[in-house]
C-alpha cells in the first residue's frame, strides 16, 4: 500500500518538506469529507420529506 504521510518530519528540512508535499493526501481527505457530507445531506433531505409526509 502506498504510504501516505500527513504531518510528520521536521518542518525545517526543505527536502523532507518537498517529500511531504509530494506524498500528501490532503486533497483526498478533503474530497472524501465532501463526499460524506453530500451523502448525509441528501439522506437527511429525503428523511425530512418522509417525516413530513408519513
Amino acid at each position, binding site marked *: 500500500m502506498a504510504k501516505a504521510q500527513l504531518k510528520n518530519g521536521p518542518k525545517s528540512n526543505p527536502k523532507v518538506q518537498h517529500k511531504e508535499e509530494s506524498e500528501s493526501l490532503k486533497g483526498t481527505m478533503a474530497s472524501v469529507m465532501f463526499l460524506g457530507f453530500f451523502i448525509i445531506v441528501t439522506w437527511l433531505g429525503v428523511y425530512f420529506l*418522509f417525516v413530513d409526509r408519513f
Partner: protein
Amino acid sequence: MPSINSTIKVDSRDAKLSMAHFYVAFAALAIGGLMGLLQTLVRSGKFELPGGIGYYQVLTVHGVLLGLVLTTFFIMGFQHAAVSRTAGTHSDKARLTGWIGFWVMTLGTVMAAAMVLMNKATVLYTFYAPLQAHWIFYLGLTFVVVGSWIDGIAQIMTYAKWKKNNPGKPGPLLSFMAVINTVLWIICTIGVAAEVLFQLLPWSLGLIDRVDVLVSRTLFWYFGHPLVYFWLLPAYMAWYVVIPKVIGGKIFSDSLARLSFILFLLFSIPVGFHHQLTEPGIDPAWKFIQVILTFLVIIPSLMTAFAMFATFESAGRAKGAKGMFGWVKKLPWNDARFTVPFIGMAAFIPAGAGGIINASNQMDQVVHNTIWITGHFHLTLATSVVLTFFGISYWLIPHLTGRKLTKKMNKLALIQAWVWFIGMAFMSGSMHAEGLLGAPRRSAFSTYMGAKQAAEWIPYQIAQAVGGTILFIGIILILIIFINLAFFAPKGEEEFPVGEQAENAEATPMVLENWKLWIGISIVLILFAYTIPFIDMIQNAPIGSKGFKTW
C-alpha cells in the same frame, strides 16, 4: 508486479471473440436507445406511437436490450480481453468454450427479442409474474444466462491455467477482478434460473396453472441486486487498473482493490429484500437484516471512492502539483480514455447517495415505484457504468481491431460524453424530482382523470423528453465512433493500458486469493439471509396466481 505485463497485446483470435460480443452489444445500444427516446416523447404527452405500438412494448425492448443484452455482452467481451491480456492467451479449448457461450447467448437474445417484437412478451425487463410472456421468451432468457455461464467458465479456465503455472503468486489483478465478477454472476443467476425453470417456464407452457408470485419475485431480486454489481464491477476494473495507467500514475493499492471486490462478492447478494421493502409476506425482521447487509456494501464503494481520489492526487503530486487541489489540473482532461470514465465516476456520487436513500426502509416509502428509481438507475447504469464502457471502448476496440483512436475521434468522444452528461442531467434530474412528487415509474402518459397532482408532473416529463432527445444524439455519436474504430480508423497500435502498483507498495496477502474461504462465506451469508424467509414463504403460500396478459 511483473505478472501484470506478461502479455502486451491481446491475441488476435481472442480479439475476434471479444469483438463478436461488442457487435451485439452496440447493436443492442442502437435499438434500445431509440426505444428510450420514444418513451420519453410519449411520456411528455405531446406524441403518440404510430401503428398501435404499445408504450409498454417499447419499454420492454428498451429494458431488455440495454439492461440485459448490452451489459452482458459488453462485460463478457471486455472480460475475455482483460483475462487474455493479463493472464495469457486463451487455450484453444477455452476459446472454443467462449465461442459456444457467445452463440448460446446470441441465440437466446434472438428468441427473447423475437417474442418481444411480436408483442408476445410485453412484461418489462423484470418480467414479474403474474404478467405472463410466451414460453419462448423465458427459454431465450435461460439461454442468455446459460451462455454467459459458459462464457465465464472460459475466463476461469485461463485464470486457472495462469495460477497453475505461477504457484504461490497472486493472480494478475485485472484477471482476478474478472473472475470475481464471473463468480458473483454465476452465484446470483442461479436464482433467476430457478425462477424461470421451475416457475415461469412450466407455467407459460401450461404445465402448471398458477405461480407463487412472492417466491418468483424473491428469486428475481436474489439475482436482481447483484446484477447491478455485475454491471458495476467491470467499470471498477477500469477505474482501479486502467485509469491509473492512462493518467500516468500508479495503482494506489492492489490489496485494497482486491479486498473491495471480495466485499462486493460477499455483500451484494444476500440483500435482495431491499427491493421488496413494501412487499407483504416477508417478515420485517428479515427485511431489517438484509437492509443492514445492504449498508455493508457501502464500505467497498467508499473504499473505491477513496482509492480513486488517492490515485489522482498521487499522480498529480508526482508531476509536481502543489496545494490542496493542484493535482486536479494535472489530470489529462483532453484524453477521452480518462475524461469519459471520469464523468461516470462523478455521476456515481449522486447515484450512490440515492442508492442509500432507496435502501433505507422508511425512506423507501417516499420513493418506491416512483420514477425517482428510474432516475437512480439511469445515473448508476446509464451514466457511471455506460460512460465507463464507452471510455473502455475508445482504447479497447482499436486495440482489438489493430487501429488507432485518432485525435478527431478523441475529440468527438469528449463531445459525446458532455452531450451525455447534459442529457442525463435533464432526464435523470427531472426523474428524481418528479419521483419525489409521487409520479409512478413504468407508466405511459396519463392525466389520471385530470388529477391536480398529476398535472404537476407534466413539466418534468417534458424535461425528460428534452433530456432523452439530447441523449439520443449521444447514442448517434457513440455509434459513429464505434463504427469508425471497428472498421475505418487508420491501422496502427493502440495500447491496452494496465496499471502497476507503486514501487514502495507492500506485497498482496495471499489470503485475498483464498477462493474457498470467500465463496464459502458468501454462501453462508446467502443461506443465513434467505433460508428462513423462504421456508416462511413456502409454508404460508397462497394458492398462487394465474397468468395475465395486459397488453
